[in-house]
């Protein structure tokens, strides 16, 4: 009851939105599609939810073909688009009732599935959806996507523009939905959220860069990576970029992640070089790669 995608391509005029995409999402897996705006994430979601035909390739969702069996898919999946798309002038309760009725069910019948989420917005059930805060809209949209007890849930950038606290809470909700047996495909531009998925696909410019567990993706980073710090971040970045042996130089929080192009890199040499650039308080220490390091290395 998962998702299977084979050689899907899609173009708009002269833009290749998706190029020969293939991967499977296992039943009950929490699978992340990680990539920036314009990577093709939404196009793939629209194809899988039967709202768009692929130019080439095939895909099945919960065992149904996205072209031939589109009616079955629509009954069996929940879809939360990136843009808020509920009825702004219906109340919270009316929206939920509306979606339940469309799918031939009632709020009561599947209440246990949405209870955790819905209780948080229930105090405002008579408020129009258009008047809700961003966080509450997101919870209502998720409730509406779940009300017919879908087998597969599609969430297109549910946490974009959301603060870290609300993002954390949203992921905790997803984990609980997964425990109830739902297969989840979720997209996000936040690389740190990749670590919360069972497996992820890194996507950019319509191509899959890598698919694996978050742990394996990080482990396969090809080079030793160093945290470099100093008293002046801007001068440090400029100096490292000027260093003839640099392979990559990316600011990461209070440090710069540095990799060297040589195999016999000696941190002492780099220290001398940075000292010659009048930097002080220099720190150089080997560190672990992150998903973002891997993404940038692959996207280079």
């Amino acid at each position: 009851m998962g998702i299977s995608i084979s050689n899907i391509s899609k173009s708009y005029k002269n833009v290749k939105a998706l190029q020969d995409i293939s991967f499977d999402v296992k039943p009950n897996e929490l699978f992340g599609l990680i990539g920036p705006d314009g990577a093709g994430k939404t196009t793939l979601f629209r194809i899988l939810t039967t709202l768009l035909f692929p130019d080439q390739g095939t895909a099945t969702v919960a065992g149904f073909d996205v072209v031939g069996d589109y009616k079955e898919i629509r009954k069996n999946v929940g879809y939360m688009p990136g843009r808020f798309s509920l009825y702004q002038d219906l109340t919270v309760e009316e929206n939920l009732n509306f979606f339940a009725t469309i799918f031939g069910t009632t709020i009561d019948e599947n209440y246990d599935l949405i209870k955790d989420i819905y209780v948080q917005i229930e105090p405002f059930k008579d408020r129009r959806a258009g008047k809700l805060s961003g966080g509450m809209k997101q919870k209502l949209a998720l409730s509406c996507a779940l009300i017919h007890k879908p087998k597969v849930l599609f969430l297109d950038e549910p946490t974009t523009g959301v603060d870290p606290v609300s993002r954390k809470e949203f992921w905790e909700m997803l984990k609980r939905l997964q425990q109830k047996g739902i297969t989840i495909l979720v997209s996000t531009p936040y690389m740190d959220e990749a670590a919360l998925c069972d497996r992820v696909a890194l996507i950019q410019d319509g191509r899959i860069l890598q698919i694996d567990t978050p742990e394996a993706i990080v482990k396969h980073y090809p080079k030793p990576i160093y945290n470099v710090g100093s008293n002046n971040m801007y001068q440090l970045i400029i100096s490292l970029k000027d260093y003839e042996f640099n392979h990559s130089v990316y600011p990461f929080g209070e440090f710069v992640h540095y990799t060297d192009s040589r195999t016999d890199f000696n941190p002492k040499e780099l220290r001398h070089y940075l000292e010659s650039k009048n930097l002080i308080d220099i720190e150089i220490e080997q560190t672990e790669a992150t998903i973002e390091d891997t993404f940038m290395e692959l996207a280079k």
Partner: protein
Amino acid sequence: MNKVIQVEGLTKMFGDFTAVDAITFDVKKGEIFGFLGANGAGKTTAMKMLIGISNPTSGKATVAGFDVYTHAEDIKKNIGYMSQKFALYDDLTVKENITFFGGIYGLSRKRIKEKSEALIKELGLEKVASQLVGSLPLGWKQKLSFSVALIHDPKIVFLDEPTGGVDPITRRQFWEMIYKAANQGTTVFVTTHYMDEAEYCDRVSIMVNGKIEALDTPKKLKEQFQAESMNDVFLKLARSPSPALPKGKGVNVGENYNNGTKSSPLGS
């Protein structure tokens, strides 16, 4: 004049709801100041008062030396502003956008021409200078719009979530532009939801329910809250019930979350 933003007891009320609750802080020349907070904490309302488009209910604020009550128009001339939501006109070309914004800020034709050429060269946009901005990738647009926000050499530039959705390489190039501007003396006032970006700031303030609950360098904030990263600081501080929810319920909801999962997945 070393302090380019001075705010004291600044407050904004909508009816009986206090959106910004007596905030006080200074920002120094050339500083990169991170203005953080959860959605609905009051950041946008505070920023609107500082850029001269919303009148405070009470309190004092000067921006670039001008009073927000009496000299809002002078403030607008002396600051740059860029947000993720609105930055450039998609149906004007790169050059037209630069010319338009240069004109708005009263630059002479000669100056606009110079600026335009320098800016296009610096960003490597020579090949697309006559293309519509709408056809450019998001990352290019954001870098261009930052440069356009600086076209009139403002003392301060306000950036409202400038990097949302941008790929990680471009996001870093963007921050290098911010460092460069700050290094040349421009003050940068920035909001972001990326907590690694909070670490790039000289000082950071965190708003919770209309108040500034913490303000210091990222390093000192991490010490103060015994946290490993700014993300942890943020979670410790901003993890109060949503202001829109009745208090009792909000607290209960929070507790359920903690019991429902083994550990905080984003905190590690």
